[in-house]
Each structure stands twice: as structure tokens, then as C-alpha cells.
């Protein structure tokens, strides 16, 4: 299979018809080549797109404001009152349920803002000004606490209040739009939708809203909001010393980013440590992903081979290992490989090693520790990969192999010409997600080596880090460590996010199968 094939040069743009004529492997190659060719123009496009989005955003705000004005001027009295009493128009036009919801929302909003929202909003710029203090009670010979502000609550409720205000503005705008639409509908002699119609459509045209309401609410409250909050923390000095409860914390702008990137601090340890740990994280993610992938495939091919008996047994034994929680198996294995653990102990007893100078210090030698975590990760990963690949292998059309055999291809050739290209094509997205998963693979590293052995080169004011530390375990140490540097953890969290986003943006564009969801029906 050469690059130039079927009289088509893959380095040049080809027509759709020619593209369809390519084998899957060729089209993969074609896509890879063209991805790299396209990077410059793609980048330009990206910036253009971003520019467009920004322009569009401002345009829509301007036109929205215009529309709000014209709707008010041209609207009837029902619409006009709706500007102040939300939902009035809807109720007056017969959409009672919808109108009541609008009205209720406004009432709740006003009550909230008056009772608590305004207070939290006023605290937002400073995150609190009064620290808690203590008073001596002479009669009982004891001190009593006089509570002050809580920066954490200020940040939390302040952020929520702002989100609430945005929601309110959006709903208010929707309420106006609704009036305009309804006015027009009535003018044109249509009837308005009622609650019953809405309910019905929720099981049909709008079924996706019904299905998504619960999951999306959960994600917004428990994933999106916490992320937003932690991003904000990166701009404060929230840490163990400024916990917000007894010592207030406050906004510090970009100080924390300066600290990480050694701007104006004259101390480059932190940025060096970050760079080193980042590069090992990427190396680890690469090896952890691909060793598992190829070895898993290899095992699957072995078990699937014709003539091998007890297929179910072999698979069952391997899968069994995923049934035991990782924290048990990994902690156990970690202890097994310690200098005074079972492995060395047995070798000593069996005479494979003679004395302590020959003891293999798996967790204490940098390179060896790195290899050991990767190897043990194979132990963890193979069963799952084996299962996945088994399924795909079964899907490869048998006639491909038959015709290859007739052409005289041996097993190795068959693997490289048929199996591998097919696998890569199908599992592209899986590889991406598993690569990202490995970048954030906390359990394996933390339970096995706890990031050790300590690497003096990674020493910084954030504490010590080890040769097998990933960004995520480093992050954990910073957060849970003696100083609880939440702000620094947030900054690093943001950096991880940026790195992973860039990587996956690139990868996502190489993998062809992400583009076509309908391919495999």
C-alpha cells in the first residue's frame, strides 16, 4: 500500500469521488497529511472565527437593545406592562401557566435581591472586611468568638447572585420577546400555544428537552459552577493562611500567575518544576495509553486466534482484576515492590540477590520508578483494552483476511495491513479520551508511588515533588499539603486545562472517525 495509489496522489487535494474510492487506511493517511497541510490556514480561520463570534455577540447585543426599544414603542399596553410586571402579557393573552412562572420568578428575584443578594453583592469587591475576633468572659474565665465576615461565603454567594442577575436579565428579555411574538401571532390570526400543547411537545418534537433537563441541571450545578468558582479562586489569595473564616482572603489579580511564570519574583523554581512535571505527564500519558493499547490488542488477538480453547476463561480471569477496587490492589502492589517488600524479600530468600546492595529499589530510583508505574499500569489496563479490541476484531470482515491470505500475506503482514489500520481508524476517539484520562490519572500514580522518588530539581516554594508526580498529583499535594494553597492549585488546574485543550484540539482534527457519527450503523 503505497502513498501513491489508485492513481491518486494523497498529498494533493482530491475530489470526493476519489476520496470515496480510497481504502479506510488510505483515507486516514490522507486526512493526516491534509491536517498538517491545513494547520496555517486553520489557525487563521480559528482567529477569524473568534473575531466573528465576538463581533456577532456585540452585534446581537446592540440589535437586542434596539429590539427592546421598538417592542416597547410599538407594543400594546399588555406588552408595555410586561416590561415591569413580567408575565402580565402572557396571562392577559391566556397563557396563564407561563405567565405565572414569569411573575413568580420576578417576585423571587426581587425578594432575594432585597433580603440577601444586595448584601452579598456589596461584599463582592472586597470579599469581606471584618475579621472574626474574640472576647474575654471574665465570669466564666473563657473566651468567646465574635463572628466576622467569611470570604468564602462572600465569593460563593456573590458569584451566585451575579449568575442570578444574568438569569433574570435573560428571562426578562425572553418575556419581552414572548410578548412581541404573541402580538404578531394574534395579529395574524393564529392561536397561542397553551400549557397542554407545551407538555405534549415535550414528549415529541421537544423530547430532547425532557431528557436533558435533569442531566444538564446536575452538570451545571455540580460541574460547571464549581469549575467557575475555582477559576475565580485563582485570582484570590485563598489558602490555609487565608481561609476566609478566621483570616479573610481577597482578590489579588494576576499575582498567582506571575508567581507560576516567574514574572517579577526572581525565583524560577516554580516554573521550572511546572515544566518538568508537565513533560513527564505527557510522556507518561503517551506510554500509558499506547502500551496498554497495543498490548491489549495483542492479548485480544491471541485469545481470539482460531484453535485457542477456553476463550471465556482467559478473558474472565483478566476481567476479574477490574472487579477489585483499585485502591486495594494498587496499595497492595505498591507494598509488594517496596525495598523491604515481598518481591525483594523473596529474591533475597531464593538467593537471586545476595545482599542489600543488590536490592532493587523500585520506588526510589527515578527511571526505574517511572518504568514500574508504566508496567503496573499495563497490568491494570490490559483487561479493559482486551475487551474493547475483542469486539472490534470480531467486526473486521473475514473476507479481508481471506483475500490477504490468497495474496500470500503472513500473520504479521496481515496485522499491519489490515488489523492495525482498521483498529486505529475505529478507536481514534477512544485513544484521545484515554490519553486525557491518563494525563489526569490520579489513582495509579498516587497509590503506587505517591509521586516519589523525590526529585531535588523539582523543589519549589510549593514543596517537594517527585519523579513520577503528574500535574494532578502535584496539584493534590499542593491542595492537601501543609499550606493548602488553593489559589496555586487553581492556577495549575487552569494550566492543565489549557494544555489538554490544545492537545485535544490538534488530535481531534487528525482523527477522521470523529467526524462521522453515522459511519457505524
Amino acid at each position, binding site marked *: 500500500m503505497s502513498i501513491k495509489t489508485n492513481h491518486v496522489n494523497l498529498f494533493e487535494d482530491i475530489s470526493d469521488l476519489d476520496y470515496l474510492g480510497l481504502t479506510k487506511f488510505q483515507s486516514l493517511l490522507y486526512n493526516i497529511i491534509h491536517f498538517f497541510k491545513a494547520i496555517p490556514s486553520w489557525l487563521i480561520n480559528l482567529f477569524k472565527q473568534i473575531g466573528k463570534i465576538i463581533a456577532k455577540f456585540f452585534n446581537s447585543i446592540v440589535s437586542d437593545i434596539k429590539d427592546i426599544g421598538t417592542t416597547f414603542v410599538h407594543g400594546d399596553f399588555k406588552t408595555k406592562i410586561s416590561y415591569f410586571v413580567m408575565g402580565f402579557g402572557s396571562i392577559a393573552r391566556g397563557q396563564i401557566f407561563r405567565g405565572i412562572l414569569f411573575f413568580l420568578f420576578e417576585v423571587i428575584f426581587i425578594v432575594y435581591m432585597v433580603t440577601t443578594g444586595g448584601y452579598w453583592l456589596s461584599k463582592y469587591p472586597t470579599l469581606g472586611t471584618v475579621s472574626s475576633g474574640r472576647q474575654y468572659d471574665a465570669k466564666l474565665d473563657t473566651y468567646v468568638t465574635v463572628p466576622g465576615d467569611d470570604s468564602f461565603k462572600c465569593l460563593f454567594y456573590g458569584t451566585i447572585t451575579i449568575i*442570578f442577575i444574568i438569569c433574570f436579565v435573560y428571562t426578562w428579555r425572553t418575556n419581552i420577546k414572548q410578548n412581541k411574538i404573541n402580538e404578531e401571532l394574534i395579529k395574524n390570526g393564529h392561536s397561542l400555544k397553551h400549557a397542554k400543547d407545551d407538555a405534549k411537545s415535550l414528549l415529541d418534537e421537544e423530547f430532547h428537552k425532557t431528557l436533558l433537563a435533569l442531566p444538564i441541571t446536575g452538570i451545571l450545578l455540580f460541574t460547571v459552577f464549581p469549575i467557575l468558582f475555582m477559576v475565580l479562586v485563582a485570582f484570590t489569595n485563598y489558602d490555609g493562611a487565608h481561609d476566609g473564616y478566621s483570616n479573610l482572603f481577597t482578590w489579588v489579580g494576576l499575582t498567582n500567575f506571575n508567581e507560576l511564570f516567574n514574572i517579577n519574583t526572581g525565583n524560577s523554581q516554580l516554573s521550572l518544576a511546572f515544566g518538568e512535571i508537565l513533560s513527564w505527564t505527557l510522556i507518561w500519558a503517551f506510554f500509558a495509553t499506547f502500551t496498554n493499547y497495543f498490548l491489549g490488542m495483542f492479548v485480544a488477538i491471541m485469545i481470539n486466534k482460531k484453535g485457542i480453547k477456553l476463550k471465556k476463561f482467559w478473558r474472565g480471569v483478566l476481567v476479574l482484576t477490574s472487579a477489585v477496587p483499585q485502591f486495594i490492589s494498587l496499595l497492595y502492589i505498591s507494598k509488594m515492590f517496596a525495598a*523491604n517488600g515481598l518481591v525483594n524479600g523473596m529474591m533475597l530468600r531464593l538467593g537471586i540477590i545476595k*545482599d542489600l546492595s543488590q536490592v532493587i529499589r523500585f520506588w526510589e530510583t527515578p527511571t526505574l520508578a517511572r518504568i514500574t508505574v508504566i508496567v503496573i499500569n499495563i497490568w491494570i489496563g490490559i483487561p479493559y483494552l482486551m475487551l474493547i479490541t475483542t469486539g472490534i476484531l470480531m467486526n473486521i470482515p473475514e473476507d479481508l483476511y481471506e483475500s490477504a491470505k490468497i495474496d500470500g500475506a503472513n500473520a504479521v503482514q496481515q496485522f499491519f495491513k489490515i488489523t492495525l489500520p482498521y483498529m486505529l481508524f475505529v478507536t481514534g476517539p477512544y485513544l484521545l479520551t484515554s490519553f486525557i484520562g491518563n494525563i489526569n490519572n490520579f489513582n495509579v500514580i498516587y497509590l503506587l508511588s505517591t509521586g516519589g522518588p523525590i526529585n531535588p530539581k523539582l523543589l519549589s*516554594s510549593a514543596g517537594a515533588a517527585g519523579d513520577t508526580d503528574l500535574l494532578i498529583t502535584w496539584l493534590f499535594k499542593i491542595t492537601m499539603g501543609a499550606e493548602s494553597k488553593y489559589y496555586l492549585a487553581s492556577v495549575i488546574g487552569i494550566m492543565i486545562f489549557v494544555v489538554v485543550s490544545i492537545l485535544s484540539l490538534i488530535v481531534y482534527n487528525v482523527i477522521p472517525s470523529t467526524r462521522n457519527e453515522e459511519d457505524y450503523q
Partner: protein
Amino acid sequence: MKKFLTILLSVLLACTLFGCAGNKGGNESSDVKEFDVTIWFSEIEGVADQVQAQVDKFNEANPDIKINATIRGITEAESATQVINDVESAPDIYCFAQDQLARLVQAGALNVLGEGAAKQVTEMNDAGSVGAATFNGTLYCYPLTADNGYFMYYDKSVITDDVDIDSLEAILEACEKANKYFSFEYKTSAWYLASMFFATGCKSDWVLDDAGTIIGVNDTFNSPEGLIAMKGLEKIAKSTARNSSSDNASFSTGSAVLISGTWARPDVTKDLGENMGVADLPSFTVDGQTYHMGSFSGNKLLGVKPQQDAEKASACQRLALWLTGEECQAERFASFGWGPSNKNVQASDAVQQDEVLAAFFAQSAYAVPQNQIAGSWWDIAKVLGQVAEDATSEADLQKGLDDYTAAINGIFAMDPAIANAYTVIGSFAGHAWDYDEAMTEENGVWTSAAIEFAAGDEFKVRKGLSWDEAFPADNFVVETAGTYKVQLDSASGEVSLVQ
């Protein structure tokens, strides 16, 4: 529909907002006041039951209050971490190790002792323990034990009588010969590793303000003495018998020596039986000179959470006093071998004759009281063990120490409060441009504490512990000896002395 979703969401949000409930008031009853008190105590089996019995006894002895105690077993380290994570839902009374005191003060998790109670604690306990419970002159908690230090357990069948147990080199050799490990956390814990540095007289003293915030450090690890300590550390780190662990069960997995504390005693006794040997730490020799390994000496402490209800605060204070009092400490020594901080219990025959505590007391002569140390220090300093293990030359050792200093300085670079603060540095009161005296600000004028100057002493006032901004341009020379406060007008950069 989108609107419905928005509204629904907003209503949900609103519910969470209003759902934030207020605090419950204390129990009000006429004669017998009842209090629900949560107590976190050691996780060791049997301790919680004993504490419960002691609380019952307290209730009997104090008919005016009744404590309903909920007792949970938890390790000291875990206890402090959890309390700091969430002070509001922390237990009313909890135990912790001394190194956490500064963090807990900083987190506002400790209620200061009332004057009477403070007097009682000071009288009952030995001076070192009282010092351990004191932070910048204020007594914050109650000494529970006085045995938080380390010494040496060894296997007599390996470290036989003809091995000099006061020589680190001899012990290491004996271990290597027998293919047994020398278990000492030389690279995983700064608490143990510091032993080598204390041996040569190095110190790491941290200056904290009353709120528990670090404002300065006087650290001499990076010094000629520190280099000697590193060479001593090298002996352990390069020995094939090295094992950076303080696992209580070390003797089960091939160790002949374990550097640990009183808490390992039950397990070591189980493993070694008759062969158990206990001694103070050995000495190491560098360039012909012998240094006895030092140690941290510290306490386990009992803390009371600040309360808004004065009566509950008072009840907790009384209970804590009782739990750390003579009777309870004696019981704990009898059942679990915890070394008492109470002077009377210390003087009792049982304690005096205890073999393990004898080793601890022998080591005390070389111990450095574990005062307030920045949390980051523990993380930073432990790297030195790895440096010693990797080093191939003296220059490597020195570089390790330099990096250590840079990392420590990095702590200050981080905090804007420190970066913007002025300090006095110079040759005065025994310092030689190696010590920063803190200053406090009022209306742009920075003033130091009173310093004793000799005639001819020189100093500068610098900002953020760096030389980028320092006043005056040439050193300030003190003309007449005396005790002055140094003052700086940060607007004009003018330095002056005031009486």
C-alpha cells in the same frame, strides 16, 4: 421551553440561597446544663473507650454540667487536617501534634485559655510542654503528652553487645553485614531528617505574627554546619541498609534498627520480644569530629474549638483541663504507655522506671523544642535526604542547600503581605546580615520592635526580603549604643532611630 428551563434553574438556585440556615442556639436549662460535645481522640484501639470513661467520671465530679460526648478515633495528623479543612463543623475538642499549632491558630480553630485555666495548665505541666502549647505568648491548648519525639529501637540479635550503639557508622555496618535495614525516614520526612542538622547546631526558627502568619525566618541549614550535617546524612543515604520508613512493623520486614517514637512500642515489642533494645540516637563522625544526632521534641496537644456560646466554651475548657489532668494522664500512661506532660505523673515511679521513656528522656538532652514552623518547610526540607543520596561531590551537597534556601525564600515571595513589608537587617545584637527583624506599619511609617544596638552597628531597611529596595543607600551606622526602635518613612525613604 428554554424559558421554563431557565426559570426552573433559577428557582432551584433561589431555593439553595434561601436554604442557608442559621445557627442553633445553645441549650438553656435551669440547674444542670447539658452540652453535646464531640471529641476527636487517638485512633488507637481502646483509647476512645477510656476517654468515654473519663468523661463519665468528669460528669460525676461536676454535678452542675452534663457532657454528652461523642468520641471518634482519629489520627493526630488527620485530625488537624480535617479541622483546618472545615473549622465550622470541627469537633469541640480534638487532639493534634504540636507541629500543627501554627496552622490551627491561623485557621482560628483554637480557643485561647481563660486566665485561670492558663494558670492551672502552666502549674501542672513541665515548662517545655507549656511552651509547646503557647503561641507568641498566648496559651492556646492543653498539653496531652510529652513524648512526641524519636529515638532508636534495635534488634539485639543483630546489633549485638559488641556493636557500639553510640556510633552511627558501627550500627550501619552491622546492619549491612546482616542484610538488615536501618529504618530511618531520611528522605520522606523532614521531622526525622532534621535530626542530622540539629546534631551540628543548625536551626530553623520561624517568625510568625499573632495571627499565625509567617513573617520571617532565621534558618541556618545552609551553612558550614549544615554541610557537615549533609555529610552525615550521606552516610545513611548511601548505605545499602537505608530504608526511608518509620513503619511500626519494620522489624517484620527485615529491619534491625527503627528510629521512631513511643507509639511504635507495642508493635516493636510484639516483633522483637526479648531482643528489643531501646536507646537514644547514635552519633556520627565527620572530619574527625563527633556529633550526636539531635531530634525534635514535641507534644501531643488537646485543643478546644472557639465557641460563640460562653457557657459551652467554659464547659469544654473544664473538660479539656480534666482530660489532660494528672489522673487521666496517669491512666493513659498505664494503658498505652503515653509519656506524660504532667509533672507529678512524670515524677511517679512507674514512669521513671520505664525503659522506653528512659531512652526518650536520654534523647531529650539533644532535642530541639519543636516550635512553630512554616507548613511548607516540612515539604521543602525533606528533599535534602534525596540530595544526599544522589550527591557525587561536596558541590552537589552545597547546591542542594542553596536550592533549599531559594525555595524557603520563595515562600515569602509569594505572599504580597511579605513582599510589601519592610524589615531591618544588619550587624546588630549578634546578627551578621543574616537576620530580618520585622516591622509594623502605621500611616506609611514602619517601626520595628526595640533593638539593642552597640555603637558602630550597621543596618539597612529592606523591602520584601530582597535588596531591590533598601534604605538608606549607604548602611545606617549607629553612633551611640542604646535600645532603639528603627523607623522608616516609606514615602521619603528616610530611616531614623527612636527611643
